[in-house]
């Protein structure tokens, strides 16, 4: 586990073929990606883009057609590569005959955690996800949100160095989401690599340092959230702008009395501020213009669809 790269894929490809090989679907198409150790990484993509297949390839639930995947430098097909991994699948179906404590104990045993460490850890994690009182209750009585929190606890049982979460807040209420975010933030501070597969862009933007966008099975875009959402140029907002100067500077009215202006260079910004001030307008803010992750995502996906 000495590698500084938590996940590395090279030309990872998965082609699903129908039983008689007549039809084929390229679910993942030559993805090469590096996820550095200790980062929070978001995997984005529209439905059917190949995100879940990519995650399953990492965990060897699906075998690659070509290419390779490594976890902390170990070939992902080697079962020991999965030892430092905690995983919460999308649409999980935990055995409902188990209770909360039994479920955590079972999956921790499969992760190779010794029995003497499990009992204390079970109680600790049930408390962490606020399910301490539900330890002895069978899972069939749990709500979707409770199962999701329990699933997260299951992924954390053996203190993994890499956490792969597929839609972790699906079905969780706002209070539960805040709790999950808090737990993940704490794990990030402790240096755990978090790989988040989610369609909730706001959540990914809020939490992840780096993202990758997959479209039609291919890697369409990757980079840090900060770089991707920082636009080129600046945005100036001002109040009480006379109509003539508003039109001259090609302003956009966001409110009756508030106008916003976009400029490409610092020089243009300074000239505009001078013009606005001399016309009696009040400067509200000057900031580098940004895009939301949703805008970046939509631009990327739409560009990919046009190709």
């Amino acid at each position: 586990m000495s590698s500084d790269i938590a996940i590395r894929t090279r030309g990872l490809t998965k082609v699903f073929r129908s039983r008689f090989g007549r039809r084929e679907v390229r679910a993942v198409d030559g993805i090469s990606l590096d996820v550095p150790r200790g980062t929070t990484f978001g995997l984005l993509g529209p439905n059917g883009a190949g995100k879940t297949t990519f995650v399953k390839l990492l965990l060897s639930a699906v075998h690659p057609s070509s290419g390779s995947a490594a976890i902390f430098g170990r070939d992902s097909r080697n079962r020991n590569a999965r030892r430092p991994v905690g995983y919460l699948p999308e649409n999980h179906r935990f055995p409902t005959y188990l209770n909360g404590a039994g479920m955590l104990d079972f999956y921790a045993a499969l992760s190779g955690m010794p029995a003497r460490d499990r009992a204390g850890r079970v109680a600790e994690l049930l408390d962490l996800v606020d399910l301490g009182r539900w330890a002895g209750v069978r899972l069939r009585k749990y709500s979707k949100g409770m199962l999701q929190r329990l699933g997260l606890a299951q992924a954390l049982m053996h203190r993994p160095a890499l956490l792969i979460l597929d839609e972790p807040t699906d079905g969780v209420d706002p209070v539960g989401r805040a709790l999950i975010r808090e737990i993940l933030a704490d794990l990030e501070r402790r240096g755990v690599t978090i790989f988040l597969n989610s369609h909730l862009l706001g959540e990914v933007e809020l939490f992840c340092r780096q993202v990758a966008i997959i479209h039609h099975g291919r890697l369409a875009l990757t980079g840090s959230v900060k770089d991707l959402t920082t636009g080129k140029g600046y945005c100036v907002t001002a109040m009480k702008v006379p109509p003539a100067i508003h039109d001259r500077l090609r302003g956009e009215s966001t409110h009756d009395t508030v106008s916003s202006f976009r400029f490409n260079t610092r020089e243009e910004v300074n000239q505009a501020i001078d013009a606005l001030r001399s016309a009696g307008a009040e400067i509200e803010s000057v900031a580098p213009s940004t895009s939301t992750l949703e805008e970046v995502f939509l631009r990327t996906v739409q560009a990919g669809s046009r190709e």
Partner: protein
Amino acid sequence: MNSVTAALIRDTFREALARRVFWGLFALSTLMILFILFLLRIDIVEGAVSTVGIFGTSLSRRIWNPERLVNHAHAAVAAFLYTFGMLLALFASATLVPSMLEPGRIELLLSKPLSRPQLILGRYVGNLLVIAANITWLFAGVWVILGWKTHVWHTGFLYAILTTIAAYAVLLAVIVLVAVVWESAALATMIPVALVIMSPILAQRDTMEKLLSSDLSRLIWNVFYYVLPKIYEIGWITRRFTFGQPIQDWMPLWSSAAFGAATLMAGIWIFARRDF
């Protein structure tokens, strides 16, 4: 056995308990034991059985030699338990392997640091132990009660435990293969039951040799006979055990074991290569 395999076996037991598979079989086995304990009356006078009765009614006024009576009782019980117990076990447990392969459950199991053969073998052994525990309880319970009532303790009857478990182990291998290929609990029940039903028909080889007109059809019949498990003939081996008679032909047992081993290996091989 390592702790991961132990966890998989424990989990299979818990699922069997929760699905009432274990308790259902246990209750039926216990009913059978209680039936023999309370409703079967055997009076022994001066070393001979003078009365055999059921529900308070005498079945026979003949004076029986207790050993002979016990032999016949063992054989009848073994034949009954071997066939109906086997079918019951198949119906009850055929869902235990397919349930592990359900989407949303298998992905999480595969994400753990264990090999796929270990995963499927853990389930196989767990399932086998669930049924073995019930079969042992049933046969051993009947043996103790008949022994207590007649003071005859033939150990040959206990071999029926081994042959019944062995025959079930072969059919369980078929369940594993069917479940891995089709993920269908219905098929995983139907195919082993079909093998049980076909077994006495295929065993009529001598008759069929005379009835079948062409060499090709005789060859096909023989291929099916030799390849498929010989559940019916293992039943006869069980019967000979209970009578304390020597076994002249072990072929049905070893060829069925070979079929089971090959089927299980095929199931493991396919499971290791499948995408989930």
